[in-house]
């Protein structure tokens, strides 16, 4: 059994006991433990089940590379699935459960997959669930989805806070092992601004476990001196518990700081995502030990040799009384020595090499440990945990020579430098024959904005596996024994989490998969949450061997961020709830909320759609608002309307280029409706332009269009006509704008008092400055409803007061606020177009019968050349007309006018479509506008629209003005 040793444990505090639970079972650990260490200390070797075969799974590693020990951490709203026990710091009250089993970890029904595993080879899903076709969607997929996935997703909103922060530095060092610390110090000495990130809570990396001294000093002495030195410097920032997980263009690095994972509920943000911009990035990310492929290498108790060492030295945890070491390199001998030093038994070291005479093997022999060279594990004995190993010759086919009883196996198949960060932005790798690993190629690094190397690897990440600089040789040992038959190969695990075995990769190869990328997807090798940190190189090597190629020829897979999984809360940061996105509010927003407005998004603005009264549906409210506006008085918050000032000696010339009509001739004091097109000729915006003075115009844009049109103006002024003397300013938010609409509109303004708004003083399409209700006001006599109408702009900081004054004074005049839907209906009743309804980016003004707003005299305007293209000038274009259904019903949104015959896809041919369709409360029937082939020439004709229900509805083609054709209502 695995237990806590009575002595040692450099990271634990034995005076601070911590209680936690695993699958409801109460356990004890110490402050400083990782969850994995504490589980092992409580003899919890079995921690989960594998994904496909539901095989028993134990802790394999001691860091983020761990494939097996994934738990559901926490409960309720704080439940987090797939948390790695090896990187989870223990805290008092921690609750966790194991994953991927039913009904229990010890007795799991899904393990039946294990017994039929020979019928579930690589590509099983692809081969089996293809036929019959309809079964995939309705039968196979739901079942597979239910059994897929490891942890459980929480069902409640996350109660924790997350945030992000920006940081800048000259040198970013990722990884605070000895190599990283040295680089950080050197850069700091050179006066550079340094940030040092370390994913674990402590500095030093592997050195305290693997080394006795650094630079002639005892390792702990060296480390504390270094830590104190760096901490004292103003130009160095050290962040522990922070994983630099992704490198992006131009020195951009994302890092995830686990601020309060180990102190849940203390009010601090749980995670903080750092967005770091570094001049230079140093990846001191170390190396990850590789497993060896032998039969039964997935049985709980088989662990990486370095992990066994970590548990013994850092946490005083014994994996078992007897641990057999199996290796192809010297580093695993350190594990044997560490176990011995802790008073534990190492029955044998099995070294696949023919000879092992380095300092460490010699030390092991001197310590009395039995070292067997040229040996391999034929198979591991045990099911839910290791009971022993059978030994064979590495050179042979697995004939058992001896069996050794043991509780744990510590394996080392060599080391893979962590080259992920070097590779994220395209750094290229070299295959190093000496250590049998991919190392970064310093000649082909990822490049920075100035063409210099953006990422540099140091220490083990660069392939320098020995801190003292002693050359290390690691011979390739990919399968153990080398001549293992299929019976053994089908029990050699490459990917523990996704259950990919040596035999699966070989099968993929036999079935024609020669690319590592395809093999990966076919077998799911390296596609689990650990992203193949342990399995990729071993799998690649098996593939290369099977294909009879060299490893570099088969290639490696692409490393992509994130290096380790990042919780979505950190990526979202502050963008949740009320501040998920910026909602733009007008100065009258609070009043609308108080009035019970139902809001709709218009871009990022929130505008009242309608103001329902108690008991009213939205539709009823809208109809009431329309009728009241037409009969009495309506008030609309029009503040969102874009307002752009254009001024200068060349402003008129500029606006004549921007609009299809002529604005330069507009007299001061008057308004004119204008259309803007893009260079292709398509309509992009419309609005009323007012001439303010000799060289100043004010352009109104659509509500969603202010920023876009302002940018459009600046683009032309800065990049094309930069010698024209024109300035623009977007003053949209300077004004609160209220549309006062209806027969009583003038009366209201007269009640508010302060300026003459009579027919004579302020005729239609004029504007005037003055005072209303004691406020400075600019009044535009314009109408988007067909009623007598004024749009009044007041300074935004008086907007709420002005709205209140209108509402108050309007009571006696039957005033009611109305929303955007009533606005839409009233404009449709009058046949006014709406950008985004009648236009969709493929419509030119001529399609909409707006030729009157296009100057024939101007030599040029934006879009003129585009509109001259033959297909836009064609008489066969769909053009705007009105429609009224014969039965008075409302044509469905998006309905098409059907034509004779069907197209190549068997769909009905079409000859037009509806663009705006409403029930008109004024006319008490459905009204619509739409585009119809040869439309204006077909007045009176009856056409058919398709409906959602599948039938058709007949409608008569007519002109677009349904209400007050002669404009008598607005000209009073």
């Amino acid at each position, binding site marked *: 059994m695995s237990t806590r040793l009575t002595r040692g444990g450099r990271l634990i505090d034995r005076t601070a006991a911590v209680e936690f639970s695993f699958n409801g079972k109460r356990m004890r650990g110490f402050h400083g433990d990782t969850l994995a260490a504490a589980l092992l200390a409580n003899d919890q070797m079995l921690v989960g089940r594998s994904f496909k075969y539901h095989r028993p799974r134990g802790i394999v590693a001691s860091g983020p590379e761990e494939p097996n020990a994934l738990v559901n951490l926490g409960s309720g709203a704080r439940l987090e699935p797939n948390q790695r026990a090896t990187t989870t710091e223990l805290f008092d009250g921690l609750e966790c459960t194991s994953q991927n089993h039913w009904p229990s970890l010890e007795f799991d029904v899904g393990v039946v997959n294990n017994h039929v595993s020979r019928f579930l080879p690589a590509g099983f899903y692809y081969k089996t669930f293809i036929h019959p076709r309809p079964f995939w969607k309705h039968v196979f997929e739901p079942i597979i989805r239910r059994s897929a996935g490891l942890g459980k997703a929480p069902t409640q909103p996350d109660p924790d806070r997350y945030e992000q922060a920006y940081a800048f530095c000259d040198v970013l060092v990722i990884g605070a092992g000895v190599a990283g610390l040295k680089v950080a110090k050197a850069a700091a000495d050179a006066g550079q601004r340094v940030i040092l990130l370390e994913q674990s809570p402590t500095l030093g990396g592997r050195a305290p476990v693997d080394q006795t001294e650094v630079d002639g000093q005892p390792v702990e002495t060296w480390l504390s001196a270094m830590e104190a030195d760096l901490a004292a410097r103003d130009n160095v920032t050290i962040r522990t518990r922070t994983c630099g997980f992704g490198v*992006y*263009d*131009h*020195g*951009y690095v994302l890092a995830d700081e686990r601020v309060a994972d180990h102190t849940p509920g203390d009010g601090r943000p749980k995670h903080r995502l750092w967005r770091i*911009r570094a001049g230079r990035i140093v990846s001191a990310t170390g190396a990850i030990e590789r497993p060896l492929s032998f039969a039964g290498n997935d049985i709980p108790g088989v662990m990486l040799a370095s992990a066994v060492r970590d548990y013994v030295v850092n946490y005083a945890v014994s994996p078992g009384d007897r641990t057999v070491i199996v290796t192809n390199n010297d580093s695993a001998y350190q594990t044997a020595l560490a176990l011995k030093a802790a008073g534990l038994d190492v029955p044998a070291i099995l070294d696949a090499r023919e000879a092992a005479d380095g300092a460490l093997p010699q030390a092991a022999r001197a310590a009395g440990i039995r070292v067997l060279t040229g040996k391999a594990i034929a198979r591991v004995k045990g099911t839910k945990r290791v009971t022993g190993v059978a030994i064979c010759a590495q050179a042979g086919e697995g004939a058992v020579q001896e069996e050794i009883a043991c509780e744990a196996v510590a394996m080392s198949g060599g080391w893979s430098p962590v080259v992920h960060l070097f590779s994220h932005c395209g750094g290229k790798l070299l295959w190093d024959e000496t250590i049998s690993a991919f190392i970064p190629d310093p000649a082909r690094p990822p*490049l*920075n*904005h*100035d*063409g210099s190397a953006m990422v540099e690897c140091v220490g083990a990440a660069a392939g320098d596996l020995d801190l003292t600089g002693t050359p290390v040789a690691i011979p390739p040992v990919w399968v153990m024994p080398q001549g293992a038959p299929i019976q053994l190969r089908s029990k050699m695990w490459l990917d523990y989490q996704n259950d990919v075995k040596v035999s699966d990769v070989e099968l993929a190869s036999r079935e024609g998969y020669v690319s590592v990328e395809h093999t990966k997807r076919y077998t799911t090798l390296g596609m689990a949450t650990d992203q193949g940190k342990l399995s990729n190189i071993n799998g690649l090597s098996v593939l290369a061997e099977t294909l009879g190629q060299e490893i570099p020829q088969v290639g490696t897979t692409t490393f992509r961020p994130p290096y380790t999984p990042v919780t979505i809360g950190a990526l979202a940061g502050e963008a949740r709830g009320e501040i998920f996105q910026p909602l733009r509010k007008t100065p009258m927003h609070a009043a609308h909320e108080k009035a019970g407005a139902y809001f709709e998004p218009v871009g990022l603005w929130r505008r009242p759609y309608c103001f329902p009264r108690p008991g009213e549906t939205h539709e009823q409210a809208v109809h009431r608002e329309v009728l009241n506006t037409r009969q009495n008085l309506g008030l609309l918050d029009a503040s969102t309307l874009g307002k752009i000032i254009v001024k200068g000696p060349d402003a008129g010339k500029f606006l004549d280029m921007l609009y299809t009509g002529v604005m330069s001739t507009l007299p001061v004091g008057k308004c004119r409706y204008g259309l803007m097109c893009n*260079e*292709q000729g398509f309509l992009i915006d419309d609005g009323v332009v007012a001439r303010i003075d000799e060289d100043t115009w004010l352009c109104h844009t659509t509500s969603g269009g202010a920023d876009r049109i302002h*940018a459009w103006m*600046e*683009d032309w002024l*800065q*990049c*094309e006509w*930069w010698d024209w003397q024109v300035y623009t300013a977007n003053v949209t938010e300077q004004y609160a704008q209220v549309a006062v609409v209806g027969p009583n509109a003038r009366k209201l303004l007269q009640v508010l008092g302060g300026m003459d708004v009579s027919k004579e003083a302020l005729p239609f399409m004029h504007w005037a400055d003055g005072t209303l209700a004691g406020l400075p006001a600019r009044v535009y006599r314009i109408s988007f409803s067909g009623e007598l109408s004024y749009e009044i702009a007041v300074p935004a900081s008086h907007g709420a007061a002005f709205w209140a004054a209108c509402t108050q004074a309007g009571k006696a005049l039957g005033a009611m606020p109305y929303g955007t839907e009533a606005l839409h209906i009233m404009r449709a009743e009058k046949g006014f177009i709406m950008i985004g309804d009648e236009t969709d980016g493929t419509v030119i003004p001529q399609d909409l019968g707006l030729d009157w707003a296009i100057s024939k005299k101007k*030599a*040029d305007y934006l879009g*003129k*050349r*585009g509109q*001259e*293209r033959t297909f836009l000038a064609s008489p066969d274009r769909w053009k705007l007309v009105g429609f009224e259904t014969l039965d008075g019903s409302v044509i469905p949104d998006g309905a098409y006018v059907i034509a004779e015959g069907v197209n190549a896809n068997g769909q009905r041919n079409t000859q037009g479509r509806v663009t705006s369709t409403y029930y008109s409360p004024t006319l008490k029937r459905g009204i619509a506008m739409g585009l119809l082939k040869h439309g204006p020439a077909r007045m009176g004709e009856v056409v058919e629209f398709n409906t959602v229900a599948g039938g058709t509805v007949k409608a008569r083609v007519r002109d677009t003005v349904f209400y007050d054709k002669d404009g008598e209502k607005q000209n009073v």
Partner: protein
Amino acid sequence: MLILECPYCGVKAEETELSPGYEAHLKRFGPGSSPEEFEAYMFARKNPKGVHFERWRHTYGCGKWFLAARCTATLEVFGTYPAQVSEPPADIIAKILARRPDWKPE
């Protein structure tokens, strides 16, 4: 994520502070131009693998449009310059040639 220095305000802006404006130095063709000229102006974009000239707007900064010369393959930036020119200035060309001797200006 790119960083480009705005030549107007000197800020080393990151990509999120900028808006892309696609290919630079297009010549506008208006009324009277041939279909071929208009097509070239509207639609025929270069999309090279290598040296490219682009328009960017410092949207969250000074609001000005500027031009950038960069390598679309390595993302190396050779330089940025104000938009009020119809072709890349000589110093930018020199900077590109210093880094890409085989490149030929049009």
